[in-house]
């Protein structure tokens, strides 16, 4: 089972070169965010490193407010998705009732509707509800999630049905069984789905662009776009500092949860 040394060396060379190429844009942004504008303009290697760009990015833009907005919105979407997906998955796995298969088909069908194709009426709905520039407008439309339901359904299926029968004999209702048995057992999958939901919500772009018009609810992604368009084009250090601030939370989350995410996504996608 051991790999010959010659082949090992080849693999390491390939791994390192590919790793460098894939990570180069990110690395460049990190480096630039600490460099002075003069160094960037002249294309030299950094002569001095400082946090100046970060200080200026935070000083000129309400980045802290944007970060807080993004955090709130992503957490709320994540929680909403976890609650709705797990409830729906529970019904599909443990409850037997008429029309269940039809509803399951309806859930599958939702995956074929791209959000962009229905974005115009969605925008009007949010506007008519008075939800422009509000947290509900930015979060509620994303709570229901077919992918999350399927992923959790796969996981719930592994819980023995006898467990539910036993709990029913013990007089435990479905909701209590869901709360005290199913959710704790499925916590790894819930965590995976949570990380995935947080990542995608944090990175959302088109919807916040349409439904935010002021700094009170604007997310950090749209803030970055503003930073990029409003800064004089020469101030790349500040722009990169802004971009780094945007990606740090998701990169950390990804680094921590990479292996779990990979396992969870593959399961949800393929079974």
């Amino acid at each position, binding site marked *: 089972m051991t*790999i010959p040394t010659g082949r090992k060396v080849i*693999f390491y060379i390939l*791994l390192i070169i*590919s*790793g460098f190429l*894939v*990570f180069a*844009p*990110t690395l*460049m*942004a990190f480096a630039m965010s600490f460099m002075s504008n003069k160094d960037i*303009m002249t294309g030299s290697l950094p002569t001095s490193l400082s946090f100046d760009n970060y200080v200026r990015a935070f000083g000129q833009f309400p980045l802290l407010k944007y970060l807080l907005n993004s955090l709130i919105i992503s957490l709320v979407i994540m929680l909403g998705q976890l609650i*709705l*997906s797990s409830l*729906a998955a529970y019904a599909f796995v443990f409850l*037997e*009732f*008429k029309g*269940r298969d039809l*509803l399951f088909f*309806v*859930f599958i069908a*939702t995956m074929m509707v*791209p*959000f*962009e*194709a*229905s*974005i*115009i*009426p*969605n*925008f*009007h*709905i949010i506007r008519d509800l008075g939800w422009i520039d509000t947290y509900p407008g930015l979060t509620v439309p994303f*709570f*229901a999630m077919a992918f999350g*339901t399927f992923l959790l359904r796969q996981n719930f299926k592994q819980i023995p049905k006898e467990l539910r029968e036993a709990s029913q004999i013990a*007089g435990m209702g479905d909701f209590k069984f*869901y709360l005290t048995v199913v959710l704790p057992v499925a916590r790894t999958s819930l965590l995976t789905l949570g990380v995935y939901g947080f990542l995608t919500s*944090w*990175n959302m*772009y*088109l919807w916040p662009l*349409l439904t935010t018009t002021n700094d009170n609810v604007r997310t950090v*992604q749209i803030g*970055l*776009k503003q930073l990029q368009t409003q800064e004089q084009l020469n101030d*790349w250090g500040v722009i*990169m500092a802004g971009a780094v601030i*945007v990606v740090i939370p998701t*990169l950390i989350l*990804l680094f921590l949860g*990479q*292996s779990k*995410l990979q396992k969870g*996504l*593959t399961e949800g*996608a*393929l079974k």
Partner: protein
Amino acid sequence: MSMNSTAIQQTPKSQINFEQVKKKQRMKNFSKGMLFLLPSIILFSVFLFYPLARTIYLSFFLTDAAGATTVFVGWENYVTMFTSPIFLQSMKSTFLFVLYTVPITIIISLFLAVIANEKLKGIGFFRTIYSSTMGISVAAASVFWLYLFHPSMGPLNLLLNAIGAEGIGWLTDTSWALFAIAITTIWMNIGFTFLILLGGLQSIDSSLYESADIDGAGYFYKLRRITIPMLSPTLFFVVTVTIINAFQTFGQIDILTQGGPVNSTNLVVYSIYREAFVNYKFGSASAQAVLLFIIILLMTFLQFKFGERKVHYQ
């Protein structure tokens, strides 16, 4: 439970009541099921099914700037759409874009997944690096590449100059802009695609490789005869997702080119956005949205119909 027992106590007269109880039980099961599903069903109805129906409806009308329908025009929005050179250009760019991004994304990610699937020391580090682009948002990735593509300071043109070639107007030249957007998109896609493919590779039964080893099979033979066929369900999934994502591209264009130069990067979602939220023509924008919906629907069906036959399931 308690409801059933009272029902039985009240009506001890067998047959019909037995049916009644069963019916009641069924109703109870149904309402319980619905209770668990209702939150999702309501939100899907309000934010997915109704808007989809409304989009189709709007596509047959002219609207005012607030989005209210004014004149019924029948198929006219569709006729205008298919005869408009701008929209035809947009469709052409979209399909070209899919052609650029999908195969290259899959090939690069597959390569990365294969080399990151070796049991080597420190492999976890490389896996993290390869999946990292998944954690980078459209806005951030676009800003990174905006600099990389910069005509005078951008590293790509500096590199070209260093080898004696002339710099390219990546985002300003009509023959390069779409390709530049594609490069950005491929880079962004790598993380997710890699992660899924790696998961697929890891789920291949290792005994297959062991028996191939006993037969003395070489590395590339195993890759071709075991890895790729066994990976086909995952590849199939990844291709579908990448195609659908390519059709939904928006953020990169909004930051890098705003659809330009001369509409060469005006992909379908950006076109819908511009028609609806810049020009306030919700009717014709809806017609484009309906077309997008149909294309994605067709893609999904075609993938399932023709993709599945060639796919090897374990």
